[in-house]
């Protein structure tokens, strides 16, 4: 497994130029997420309307994997329902822990398949998703992947 397969072009790009980056003033959910292992810190902002995500942004600093994952997550979940997002998280989690692409298409998120070969990076890839899930289900405890 070469480094190129972990750090694919899209990951490096989204890590350096994250999409939907910055505070979301019209958010009605927000949640902080923290990965103590390497110091990744994220803040996820969501505007939800009737169980559908209208907009999602994030702020924070972290390694390329955590930032790229947050960026691609924001693109993937816009317009989806909470139930669809929970399902997508499961599929994504399987991908990064087992490395097998799921039967259903997860679009650009498949680019993280290399993470499975680097178990210490799984927590980086899933931080944004844990944080989003905590925001949507109003979990008051700050999301961490410890």
């Amino acid at each position, binding site marked *: 497994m*070469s*480094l190129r397969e*972990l*750090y694919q072009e899209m990951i*490096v790009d989204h*890590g*350096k130029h994250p999409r939907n980056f910055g505070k979301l003033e019209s958010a009605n959910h927000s949640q902080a997420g923290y990965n*103590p*292992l*390497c*110091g*990744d*810190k994220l803040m996820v902002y969501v505007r939800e309307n009737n169980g559908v995500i209208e907009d999602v942004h994030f702020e924070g*600093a*972290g*390694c*390329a*994997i955590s930032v790229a994952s947050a960026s691609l997550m924001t693109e993937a979940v816009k317009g989806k329902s909470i139930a669809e997002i929970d399902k997508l998280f499961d599929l994504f989690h399987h991908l990064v822990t087992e490395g097998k692409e799921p039967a259903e298409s997860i679009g650009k998120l498949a680019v993280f398949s290399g993470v499975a070969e*680097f178990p210490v*990076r799984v927590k*980086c890839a899933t931080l944004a998703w844990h944080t989003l899930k905590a925001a949507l289900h109003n979990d008051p405890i700050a999301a961490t992947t410890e």
Partner: protein
Amino acid sequence: MTISATTIDFTKLRRDFPILQGTNRGKPLIYLDSASSAQKPNQVIDAITQFYANDYANIHRGIYELSERATKLFEDTRSQVKQFINAKSAEEIVFVRGTTEGINLVAQSFGRSQWQAGDEIILSGMEHHSNIVPWYLLKETIGIVIKVIPVTDDGALDLTAYKQLFSARTKMVAVTHASNVLGTINPIKEMTAIAHTHNVPVLIDGAQAVPHMPVDVQALDCDFYVFSVHKLYGPTGIGVLYGKKHLLDAMPPYQGGGDMIETVAFDKVTFAKTPQKFEAGTPNIAGVIGLSEAIRYVQAIGMQQIYQHEQDLLAYALPKLTAIPEMRIIGTATPKVGVISFILDSVHPHDIGTVLDHEGIAVRAGHHCAMPLMERFKVPATVRASFGVYTNEQDIDALIKAIELAARLFG
């Protein structure tokens, strides 16, 4: 007087460490994480194996010759440690699980039995969590106040500020001998003398000093000194707490059980004398045997030689590192032990660590159990490369190349 490090064949010495012939991520292992834990030479591995094969029995209680042999090997090591750190007596050497347990022992036995709400302890901003949290627990349980010596921009302790932290309520100073993040060696002899003018005892965290330089606890005049054996090329699960005898004698027990008692009745227990008073239960006997061999191993090289070897490596590495664009070394104060923390402006430490891992290089990327220090330098984490007796210039060349690769990949 500095003895030339070239009188020791450090290249030949590498062959004592079998793991260095191995691989990491399919490439030859380049181990630059000795500050986290040191690799073990054959001599230490064999000593432990031979002990279990030939001399093993429980100690102190047995009435047969085998147990006498094991007990002698164990207690001889106590005298050996006394000589290694120049304590006054072997009774001032307590075997614990590691630096962390040693500090917890002092906090719970010395601190808890004497201090009250409002009493103060002075720590420093560069402490490892093992020299923060035990005192924080006393803050939570008995209400002591923690005061912190500030760290300067180059990674040293602000001694002027230190002197001003003392008050009528100060009960202890607990500070690290050498920083596991910055590498800075603190002027603890001077700091101890200052504390003693206020009648305040001093605990020194020597985890990152003992493997890298000679330590003389009588010359330092510190009241407590702790270190871990696994960082000293010995096994895990064993460490040393040194304490001045009159202090240890006055302290109540830490853990209760067998071996630390004289007599036991349900309504009255009398305790053993120092140091047995603090060693409840069957100890890590093989760990102590490993410690014995580890001390023999480093003394055969010479602690001053080891210190000089690391200084030579620092002199080789630092100019090459600072030549890399966007490189920021965290901790430029001297003198330092062979520990270098750094960041690159545009690449997160964890990503640098992964690229290095891929080139076979083992470094640490994270907060190094020093979150307050990370906060002080406003970094989420650093990459830390650290040296051992087996580290050579080729290791450093490989490190430089890999950092440059990481910068290219993400730049």
